[in-house]
């Protein structure tokens, strides 16, 4: 039995098992989910043989499944993040209803993702893409909160993306006669410019919707924040990477070879604009979920820019950031989920001062935020550095400024996220909050350990990225375990950075705590220097409302026009058109008869032109 088919059967079987497990009773369901969450990665890492392929023909279309290195890189993200998210989900979804459908669609979306990464031809790619879409749709509307708006918006956008891809597939099939990806890549040069652009752009459209590039990102904030947090970490961590996977092989394999770099360049620009605008809107959110949703759109913007540029260093940066983004975004959404479960709400105007009560969650959130912001000791910096170096090396300097503006503004919402949820005043109404259950903490800790390690040894990720890039046409990708080099020969030894930061930190830690720590007394946050005024425990001294008001005043002209406005008007226009169409069917027989007569008359008059005599 071919290992790939077995993998698919395991995941599908796991989904069904956990569905019926949860239908029977909760504990059995949780056990099955836990077992499935362990079996899938173990099987993938040990048994799956990455060279063999399995193929079968269905109604005249030849379908083939098989791993290539590029797919292996992305399925590593899926295989690491989703089991952890599943284990986290056991803790997170403890007292929710309808768990059966939740786990069923969760595992089916994993099936969809692994399928996409394995499929070597367009039909199976499209099939798994659709499975992934509708299973994630079921989860977007799982909590039933304003199903109408976010659910339908998500479905429409993914449908548009999927059907654009289907159109491209059909046209490719007509031109190349076969559905295989390799044939398409091979014969891409032979197409006429018009079909080249048509098929390429349509494929790009399909993938860009999933990776939330600016004009098509409207579904992302709603979808990311309404889904249960356990799934959002996979949703934004792994699912959006499918879009990146697709962008990767389209932009790099096709357009680069067929010297159409202009498409990649435009895509990079769209990525940069996405990064800036998404960061600006992330800064002013007061709900932690929305903030993270916009921030993951911004991070995807970086990755898209990286891939769009197309030089070896920038693609390496893009793919490296993709891996990192999956890790720290996964942790951050798990953190928000833990806070939501323990403190009841994630609205930063309400919650404050959970650091002391949820120390582990705060620690992992801190690590993830440092990685997200790209600050030196941790892995995020490596990705950012490579991105900047690649941009500067082929001197498109305006984009560097855009990316830098968005990453500096990213510090704002990084601080706001940590301060809003964890630091600030310790309010009495949150005294009851306890640390999240260990089932939720362990996945978070594992991922943050991964982030810490990549800080010093980014090589462990570079290995797989380099392998992946061989499929994209970059054969000898030079990377060292912990020294980053750019085209002009400058290099940063990340280990030195790590070493000096740790050494200096420990030195001064000893200096400050020596003899001082014992004397100092622990103070509650109510005993602050408030010019002598007596602060009673119930006085709310938290500062959270309108956190970056001055920045908002500066950005007023930019933030005025909102992209949703255009979509709403477009939607209303469509509604009016549909209403007009419906009026055709007036509902009384006579008009229908008149229609028939008129139609007949028209045909008779124009019979000369229609039938040619």
């Amino acid at each position, binding site marked *: 039995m071919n290992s790939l088919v077995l993998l698919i059967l395991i995941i599908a079987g796991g989904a069904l098992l956990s569905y019926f497990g949860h239908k029977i009773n909760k504990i059995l369901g949780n056990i099955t989910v836990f077992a499935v969450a362990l079996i899938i990665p173990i099987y993938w890492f040990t048994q799956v043989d990455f060279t063999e392929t399995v193929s079968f023909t*269905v*109604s*005249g*279309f030849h379908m083939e499944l098989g791993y290539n290195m590029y797919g292996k890189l992305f399925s590593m993200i899926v295989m690491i993040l989703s089991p952890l998210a599943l284990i986290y989900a056991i803790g997170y979804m403890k007292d929710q209803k309808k768990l059966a*459908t939740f786990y069923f669609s969760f595992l089916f979306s994993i099936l969809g993702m692994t399928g996409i990464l394995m499929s070597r031809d367009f*039909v199976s790619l*499209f*099939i*798994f893409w*659709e*499975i992934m879409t*509708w299973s994630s*749709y079921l989860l977007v*509307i*799982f909590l*039933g909160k304003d*199903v*109408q708006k976010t*659910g*339908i918006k998500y*479905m*429409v956008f993914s*449908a*548009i993306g999927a*059907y*654009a891809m*289907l*159109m491209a597939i*059909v*046209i490719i099939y*007509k031109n190349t006669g076969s559905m295989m990806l390799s044939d398409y890549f091979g014969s891409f040069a032979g197409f006429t410019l018009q079909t080249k652009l*048509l098929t390429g752009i349509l494929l790009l459209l399909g993938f860009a919707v999933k990776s939330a590039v600016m004009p098509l990102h409207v579904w992302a904030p709603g979808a990311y924040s309404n889904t249960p947090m356990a799934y959002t970490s996979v949703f934004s961590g792994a699912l959006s990477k499918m879009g990146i996977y697709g962008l990767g092989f389209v932009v790099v394999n096709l357009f680069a070879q067929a010297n159409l770099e202009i498409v990649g360049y435009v895509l990079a620009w769209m990525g940069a604009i996405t990064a800036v605008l998404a960061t600006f809107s992330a800064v002013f959110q007061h709900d932690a979920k929305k903030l993270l949703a916009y921030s993951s759109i911004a991070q995807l913007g970086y990755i898209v820019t990286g891939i769009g540029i197309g030089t070896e260093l920038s693609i390496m940066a893009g793919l490296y950031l993709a891996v990192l983004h999956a890790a720290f975004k996964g942790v951050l959404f798990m953190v928000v989920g833990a806070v939501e479960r323990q403190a009841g709400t994630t609205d930063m105007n309400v919650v404050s001062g959970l650091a002391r009560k949820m120390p582990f969650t705060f620690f992992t959130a801190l690590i993830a935020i440092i990685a997200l912001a790209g600050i030196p000791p941790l892995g995020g910096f490596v990705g950012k550095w490579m991105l900047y170096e690649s941009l500067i090396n082929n001197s498109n300097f305006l984009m560097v400024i855009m990316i830098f503006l968005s990453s500096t503004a990213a510090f704002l919402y990084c601080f706001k996220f940590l301060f809003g949820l964890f630091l600030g005043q310790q309010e009495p109404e949150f005294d009851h909050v306890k640390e999240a259950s260990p089932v939720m903490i362990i996945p978070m800790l594992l991922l943050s350990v991964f982030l810490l390690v990549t800080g010093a040894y980014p090589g462990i990720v570079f290995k797989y990225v380099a392998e992946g890039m061989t499929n994209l046409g970059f054969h000898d990708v030079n990377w060292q375990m912990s020294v980053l080099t750019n085209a002009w020969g400058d290099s940063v030894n990340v280990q030195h950075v790590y070493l000096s930061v740790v050494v200096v930190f420990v030195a001064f830690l000893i200096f400050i705590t020596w003899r001082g720590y014992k004397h100092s007394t622990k103070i509650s946050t109510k005993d602050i220097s408030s010019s002598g005024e007596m602060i009673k425990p119930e006085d709310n001294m938290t500062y959270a409302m309108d956190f970056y008001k001055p920045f908002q005043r500066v950005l007023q002209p930019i933030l005025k026009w909102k992209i949703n406005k255009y979509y709403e008007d477009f939607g209303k226009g469509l*509604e009016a*058109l*549909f*209403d007009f*169409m*419906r009026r*055709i*069917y*007036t*509902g*009384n*027989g*006579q*008009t*229908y*008869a008149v*229609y*028939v007569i*008129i*139609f*007949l008359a028209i*045909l*008779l008059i124009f*019979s000369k032109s*229609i*039938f*040619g*005599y």
Partner: protein
Amino acid sequence: MVITDPVYFIALPLLTAFLLPLFGKIYKPLIGIIPGLVFAFLAYISFDLYLNLVPGKPIIIQMAGWAPPWGINLVFSEFSGLIVTLITFLAFLVWVYSYNFKKVGFDNSKKYFTLLMLMVAGSIGVVLTGDIFNMFVFLEITAIYSYGLTAFYKGRDSAEAAFKYLLLGSLSSVFILLAILLLYKQVGTLNMADIAVKAQSIDPKMKSIIAILFFVGLGIEAEMFPMNGWVPDAYSQAPGPVAASFAGMLAKSGIYALIRVFYTVLEVKGVFDLLLIMGLLTIIFAEFSAMRQKHLRRMLAYSSIGQMGLIMVAFSFNTKAGIFAGLFLMFNHAIIKTLLFLSSGFLTYSTKQKKIRDLDGFGKIMPFTSLMFGLGAFAIVGLPPFSGFWGKLNMLVATADSNLYFVIALILLVAVVEIVYYFKVIGRLYFRQQHKDVEVHNPTWNAILAMSILAIVIIGVGIYPDLITDYLTKATNELFDKAGYIHSVLPNLSLN
């Protein structure tokens, strides 16, 4: 053992339809059982005949001994055989579904089953007949009994719907009769094969008039754009199983007639482009107005018109791939639309005004029916693991072959609209709190049986579409070579 003869298809239902009241006198539940037996027998015959059909040699039966050019003959070839098997299979399932149809008292079921049997006989007749006038007669039979079935419930709306259907149906029969008369005057014969041979000799002017008349007449039956006003009312006012049979059989026979006329009988050059334009218009108007529907059944009716439009577009390519895709879509539409109508039958039966808004939270109260409806919706929209996807894929491949890129874009855009309104209903079914006072009518065991058979067929074809693809290719080849048809019907006629 029993000689399998296509004549039974028509004779047996007609005979038993009128004997039903007698059986009813002898033993009351017999009324429910007899139609079942008949349909089962018909289904058995059609399967048996179809399976051991030798390609290239369809079964030709002369009625009452007259040779073809004069007598009426029945043609049971791959193409017509496929449709007949489809119709009998669906008829049997509709019978299983509405076996002890609760709302129908003792006397109604008598009327209901007779009308149903006659309609089935008529639609099989349309498909089998080789004689143009005979086809007109069978069209009339199906039309009349469908008026009866639409007006089955005593309410004001069903009467009005039936009247609308009657009005348009009579218009269509007038046009078809006129076309046949003109044709007879030109060609002198009524046998399709014979007309096909003599068609070239008609002078073009007259030929175009005949084509237009046929186009409009059969267009009404095949729910083409300007003429399908009756469809939403008829489908929504008729009882659940009847609407399903309409979608499954009536529409199929209408399309079959249109194809038979324009593919084999009349060879008219420009008709296919017209068919393409009309098909696209049908899709656009139907799907867009389906978007704004409040009633579940009307929405399904509009969506079924949309599917018919898609089939017309498929056939309008006049290429082998186009026909193959059209047949696949016809098969899909028949199966999935029947499942949707059957499951929506019970859903709307529990709501007061059949509105989509009342369907909130039905996922919990009627789990099986809403699961079936969800499955049907996923299939009709074309999501992968179900048969709808392969149909749509082949359809798109066919359109790409005749490189009509804007048609692909249009079809996919309309598919997005379709996704929106189907998923709105699913969203309501599963992810909303249900309203307070809802009395639940859970489906009876036979309804569950019928629906699950359909579901199994959908999933089966979805996972492994090769089950039916080779039958479809055989039917395509048969339809495509006109000469083969003529030769088999008139073996001794030397092609002059």
